[in-house]
């Protein structure tokens, strides 16, 4: 192949195409280099000759079979595979992709000059380039079977440890995958299999009782699907017990009991991927630390893959991992905004909407952010050119989002929310080669990399998660308490809400206590309160409950920590704090409501209040419980009573 390239160069010398020539030279040099390396290993002159004749880039001789005659095969059999450094391969891939671009520039040039000889030469270069590119990409591919070969041992070890009987089956070991990706899925896959054995497969006695075969099975399948590699892990264990998941989620305060009822199994599955989540009561050597599935998910998403878990109780769990074929190439949508090209990864792209100017009334202004009603969804719109914040090159055709002409909207999904990116022009879907950004440009960047287009233009690849974060900064409606990313449940509604208990406090009127600080509500007779050591305490459920008056706490009247009793019956809101049970005396207990997390500021600043909220036509003070409790309870000098209790 080198020889052919060299021969082709000569007629090209006549043509005035320096660029192409220099690239060809470079590739030729690289090839020669590798050829030398291989010669070192073999030191067989005839073999070297053979290598030049066919594809010298093959790392493993097996690949040569498809083109080789029988005698060629025999010659390869006697040789060990060549070790080639990955860096060298990377340079080669780079050079070859440059060669492809140079060829692209050469073709229109050749068509301009109606010279048969020249055209023939160019078309041969064309063919060779395609072949070269195909081969060189395959040098980095390895079969998943190489990774899987280590699994039977793992299965044996773990199942012995868990005292279970498990066997593992494989399908599709020949599926090829980029080396770096193979490395990246190694740990997640190991973890999933450990999970299958430890959590999924039941002990033998239980299996027999359920009428299942004695030995549990794990089935690993790999296949290509639509430019992605799909890896499936099936087990025939007990499946996920969603009741336990639900209980754990409540215990870990990911959700409240009220929310838990409304969750579907699929939504509950998401908790498995949360950091610190484990359904195990105790930590074992194998599992229970609560680190694991969250790491699995992070690892897989970091290489542009997805993971889905579906479970059927007592029948097993299916875990489907989808990852791109190579790290370096992703399908992306090329768009133009503000005179520059950007690539939106297809993974984040839901759909494209073109909104004609006549339909502009479908846009609404939502607190300063234009919102588009897409079917039953409210889609906030952001201009990509505004987000990237560059001076536009040339005139920007679109101005105010509410008054302009046709809109190109890319509907994007990221971080559990959807939004629309308005771009000036949608060009095409294309496979792009990701090149990492130089370190200088990386910090806080909106881009995950850059790519070079066929015509030599550079297009930046948008890091959609970063863009999504920026849209939040951009929108004028800001949540007061930053909602965690790990709370997709709250993101479902437009305005994040929080459950609060409404109470009346003398002097403060209607106030709201966050539900996390409410464990019980009760009424007690005022006579039961014992005044002791300047404190009011109450015997409650075999425990000593400290009674606090919220209105006094809010007034900061610490002079007397004894409550004033006006009524015979006291309404108490009981909170089991880590320091001991507390009872807050309130005038009246109203109801539990959902208040938006976003609050109106109190002005001037009021101690103990987070802010105010409107509930219908009533004004509600939202209490800042941590602040209130800090003064009353956590101060060390007021603690002695509690220390003796806990």
């Amino acid at each position: 192949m080198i020889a052919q390239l060299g021969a082709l160069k000569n007629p090209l010398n006549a043509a005035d195409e320096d660029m192409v020539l220099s690239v060809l030279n470079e590739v030729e040099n690289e090839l020669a280099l590798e050829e030398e390396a291989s010669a070192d290993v073999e030191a067989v002159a005839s073999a070297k000759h053979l290598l030049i004749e066919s594809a010298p880039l093959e790392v493993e001789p097996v690949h040569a079979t498809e083109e080789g005659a029988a005698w060629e095969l025999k010659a390869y059999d006697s040789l060990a595979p060549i070790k080639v450094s990955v860096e060298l391969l990377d340079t080669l891939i780079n050079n070859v992709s440059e060669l492809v671009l140079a060829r692209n520039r050469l073709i229109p040039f050749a068509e301009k000059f109606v010279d048969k000889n020249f055209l023939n030469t160019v078309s041969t270069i064309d063919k060779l380039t395609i072949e070269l590119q195909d081969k060189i990409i395959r040098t980095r591919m390895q079969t998943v079977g190489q990774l899987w070969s280590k699994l039977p041992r793992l299965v044996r070890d773990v199942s012995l440890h868990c005292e279970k009987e498990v066997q593992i089956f494989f399908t599709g070991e020949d599926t090829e995958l980029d080396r770096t990706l193979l490395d990246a899925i190694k740990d997640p896959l190991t973890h999933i299999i450990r999970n299958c054995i430890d959590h999924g497969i039941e002990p033998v006695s239980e299996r027999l009782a359920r009428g299942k075969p004695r030995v549990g099975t794990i089935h690993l399948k790999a296949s290509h699907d639509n430019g992605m590699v799909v890896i499936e892990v099936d087990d025939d264990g007990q499946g996920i017990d969603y009741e336990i998941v639900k209980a754990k989620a409540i215990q870990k305060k990911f959700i409240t009991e009220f929310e838990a009822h409304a969750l579907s199994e699929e939504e509950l599955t998401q908790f498995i991927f949360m950091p610190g989540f484990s359904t195990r009561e105790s930590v074992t050597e194998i599992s229970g630390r609560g680190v694991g599935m969250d790491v699995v998910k992070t690892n897989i998403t970091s290489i542009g893959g997805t993971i889905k878990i579906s479970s059927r109780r007592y029948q097993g769990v299916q875990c489907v991992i989808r990852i791109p074929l190579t790290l370096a190439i992703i399908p992306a949508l090329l768009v133009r905004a503000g005179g520059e090209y950007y690539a939106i990864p297809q993974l984040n792209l839901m759909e494209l909407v073109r909104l004609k100017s006549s339909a502009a009334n479908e846009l609404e202004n939502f607190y300063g952010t234009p919102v588009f009603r897409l079917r039953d969804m409210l889609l906030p719109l952001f201009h990509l050119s505004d987000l990237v914040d560059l001076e536009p090159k040339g005139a920007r055709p679109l101005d105010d989002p509410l008054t302009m002409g046709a809109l190109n909207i890319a509907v994007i999904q990221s971080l559990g929310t959807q939004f629309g990116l308005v771009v000036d022009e949608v060009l095409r879907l294309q496979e792009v080669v990701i090149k990492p950004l130089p370190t200088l440009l990386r910090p806080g960047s909106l881009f995950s990399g850059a790519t070079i287009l066929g015509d030599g233009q550079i297009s930046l690849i948008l890091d959609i998660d970063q863009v999504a974060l920026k849209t939040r900064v951009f929108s004028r409606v800001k949540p007061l308490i930053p909602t965690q990313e790990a709370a997709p449940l709250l993101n479902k509604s437009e305005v994040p809400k929080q459950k609060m208990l409404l109470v009346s406090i003398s002097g403060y009127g209607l106030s709201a206590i966050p539900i996390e600080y409410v464990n019980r509500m009760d009424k007690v007779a005022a006579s039961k309160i014992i005044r002791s050591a300047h404190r009011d305490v109450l015997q409650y459920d075999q425990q000593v409950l400290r009674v606090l008056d919220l209105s006094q706490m809010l007034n900061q009247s610490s002079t007397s920590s004894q409550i004033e009793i006006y009524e015979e019956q006291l309404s108490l809101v009981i909170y089991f704090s880590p320091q001991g049970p507390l009872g807050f005396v309130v005038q009246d207990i109203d109801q539990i409501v959902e208040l938006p997390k976003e609050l109106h500021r109190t002005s001037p600043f009021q101690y103990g209040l987070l802010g105010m909220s409107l509930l219908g036509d009533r004004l509600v003070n939202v209490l800042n419980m941590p602040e209130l409790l800090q003064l009353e309870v956590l101060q060390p000098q007021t603690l002695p009573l509690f220390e003796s209790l806990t």
Partner: protein
Amino acid sequence: MNTLLFSFRVGGYLFGAPASSVVELSREVEVFRVPGSPPFVKGLINLRGQLAVAIDLKKKMGLDSTTESSERQLCIFMETTNTLIGLMVDDVHEMFNVGISDFVSSPVNLGEQVDELVSGVYKLPNGLLHVINLAGLLKTNEQKNFVH
């Protein structure tokens, strides 16, 4: 011990960089802007499939950048630690073979930001040759000193 320096002019100063780090020279390169990049970074350049960071040396040095020499903008591509950079310069000069005896490290009172960018000067018969510190070029933290 002698060093071979490649010299170029920026904003009236003569700068030098180790000749071994220079990859190539190019005129009229296409620079693609990168949003959110430091102000002295003009953008990215496609150097035959490799990404190079275009650095506006005038801005980086805090030199007068009003005399925009966009007409014949020259770009020197240099290889630094893992990064390919493209320095936008006004003009290129000759190669100097300089001896260590002519080297003076930059005066301490020169100011922090210059200090980090220029490792010293060589005394030439007819002027000073400022030796550029390529690693210092890629630092972003100190740009705050002169941007604001």
